[in-house]
Structures are given as C-alpha cells and as structure tokens.
C-alpha cells in the first residue's frame, strides 16, 4: 500500500503540473514546491484512507470465515490481477476461497500430497507470500509478511 500511495502521489504531482502548465502559468520553482508538497500530502491521505478501507474489508471477510483456520490471502496472477480471499489449512487440503467483493470468484483446493514444493514469494525484493508448486501449476499466494514463513513451515510439515 505504501508503494501505491507513492505512485498516487507521483501521478497527482504530474496531474498538478500538467494542469498548471495548461492554464498558461509560467513554470516556477515555487509552483513546483507547492505541487510536491500537495502531492505528498495526497499520497499520505490516500494511504490513510486506504488503510481504513482495507481494515474494514478484512474485518468483514474474516468475520464471515470465522471459526475456520483461515489466513487473509490473495490469489496472485499479476500486479493488476489478484483475487482477495482467505487461505484455509484443513487437514487434507490447502484451500483458497475468494470473498464476495471480487468480480471473479475462485475456489482452489490443493491436496497436500500433490504439492511438490513451497517457496517464499518475493515482490520487489520483499517477502509477500508463498509460491506453491504442484505437478500442473504454480499457485502464488499473497499473505501477511509475518505469517508467510510460519505457514510455509506448516505446509511443509503436512506434505
């Protein structure tokens, strides 16, 4: 979310600069400084507001799956295609269930015995989740960074 807030701030700064130049204002360093200050403030506001939304969604989803051995997770396909849901570690299966806020629903059940190997999943040099390799495919799951390694150990213990 921090990276997306920085992206938002950069895009906002570009938007302000374009809007200023389209208004036939002469370019000045003062204008540039104001743009950077307001864009940074924009990034900060975006981060704070998005945290509120994320906390709310997480609370609603986790309440829905209450009682299961569930972890918040995303099924990751690409940077702009990721499905939110939960990861459940049942006795025989590793199950990913998407929540109802997604456009596309997914239910993936992987028997522990079909898992070939499990690796940490890094994105931009940061530990973001796990890569689970089966005979047919590789499933990439985004998990809370402090939960990725304990879950990796737990899965390894089961296959």
């Amino acid at each position, binding site marked *: 979310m921090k990276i997306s*807030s920085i992206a938002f701030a950069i895009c906002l700064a570009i938007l302000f600069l374009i809007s200023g130049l389209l208004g036939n204002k002469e370019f000045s360093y003062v204008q540039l400084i104001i743009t950077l200050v307001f864009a940074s403030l924009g990034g900060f506001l975006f981060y704070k507001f998005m945290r509120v939304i994320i906390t709310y969604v997480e609370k609603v989803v986790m309440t829905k799956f209450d009682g299961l051995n569930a972890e918040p997770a995303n099924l990751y396909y690409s940077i702009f295609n990721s499905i939110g849901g939960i990861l459940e570690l049942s006795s025989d299966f590793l199950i990913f269930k998407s*929540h109802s806020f997604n456009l596309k629903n997914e239910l993936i059940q992987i028997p522990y015995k079909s898992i070939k190997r499990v690796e940490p999943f890094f994105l931009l040099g940061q530990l973001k989740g796990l890569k689970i390799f089966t005979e047919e495919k590789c499933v990439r799951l985004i998990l809370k960074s402090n939960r990725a390694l304990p879950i990796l150990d737990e899965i390894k213990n089961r296959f």
Partner: protein
Amino acid sequence: MKKLMLLIVVLISFSCSSLNEEPVPQIEMESVLVQKKRLDNDLKELSSLMRHQGITFESSKDFKNLANVFFEKNEIENKNFEESFERSLSFSQDLGSSKRVMSSPELDILISDINKEIKNFNEYDQILDYLDEKIVRILSSDKFDVSVKEKLLNYLVFQSVFLKFYNENLDLIYNEKSNSRILACGVDQGTALDIGLAIWGGALIGAGSGALGGSVVPVVGTTVGALGGFLVGAISSAVLTTGYTLVSQAIQCSK
C-alpha cells in the same frame, strides 16, 4: 468591476477629449478603423510598459505617472488624460448613479442606453459584435449631428478596444479591497472545471494505485483496491486540488 468601469471611463473620456482638438466634418468608416487601430496599439504599448515596470491599475499614482511619461510628447493629451482620470475616480465611487461624465446631457443618455444594453450580454464576443454593429448604425444615421456622432463613435471604438485590452491584461487590473483582485488573478476562471477534472483525474489515478496496492495486500484484491482507490482518490484529489489552487493563486496574486 468598479476598476474596470473606472478604466473604461478614463480612457473614453481621454480619447473623446483628445479627439475634440481636431473636429472632423464628415466621419467615415475608414477613419473609425484607423482610430481603433491607433488606440489598440497605444494600449498595447501602455500595457507592456506597465508590465515592464511592474505597475498595475491598483496604484492610481503610479499609473498616472506612467501615463505622464507615456504621453509626454503631447502636453494636451497628457492634461486630458489626467483630467479624465480624476473625473473617473469620482465616477467610480458611484457606478450605479447617473453621474454625468460626458460633455452633454444628450450624449449621457445615449451612452447610458448603450451601457444598459451591454449589461445584457454575457459573452465577450457578443459585446464586441454589438459594438461593431452600433458603430455601423451610428455612422449611417442622420439622427445625430457630427459632434455627437463623433463622440459616440469614440466611445464605441474605445469600448471595443478596451474590452480586448481588458481580456488580454487581466493581471494589470485588480483592486485589493474588492473581489476584482481575485478575478484578475484568475481564481474564479474555470476553477470549478479544474476541480471537476482533478476529481476525475484523482479518481482514475486512485483506481490505478488502489488496484496496484490491493493486489499485494492480503484479503483486499485488485477489485476492492481499485474501487476503494477510485473513491479515496476522488476525495483526496478534491481536497488537495482546492487547497493547491488556493495556495497557488494566493502566491501568484501576492507577486
């Protein structure tokens, strides 16, 4: 607005009085066009001189001094200009009144009628068209004697030229004590449109950033991230654009 009216009156009076020195027996369209061109060039030169010296109409003293320098070659023009300026200063104190600024009551009524009609137009181009049309009508009319005709034409020509001047030199016309300062600095020009566009721009940027962020946050996902980002981006952008516009304009106006 008062300042604008003041300027109109100053320059009208000035141009009227200066042209009185040489009465023209018969007025032709060509001479009107020449006068228009001359005024246009004079105002252009004056405005560039004002801008160069950092003078605005806000300071009547500086403006008068500059005009003195500008018209120094012609003592009569300079005197006329100063008189017109003093007269229009008092006129501007009561714009709604029917205070006479022209030399004859007949002319005052005619000009007052023209002013009333001008107030009905909202568009700059409409006013210019109206003034041009009025010039042609007065030129071909037999209703007025030559001196009234001449003064009326002076007035219309000047109105037309000044409107152009006003539109091209908003930065020179402002009054610290009134809202016209804001008008001159451009805060109210297209601000709503700017903020509207910024909200949409922010919403779209927010949707992209939210999708990016949501994709790598457990539970959220791209869809929720994009929708949340759209909403949050629009709100953030609206707040920030308003602040950004106000701060930028305040700095611009303080220069």
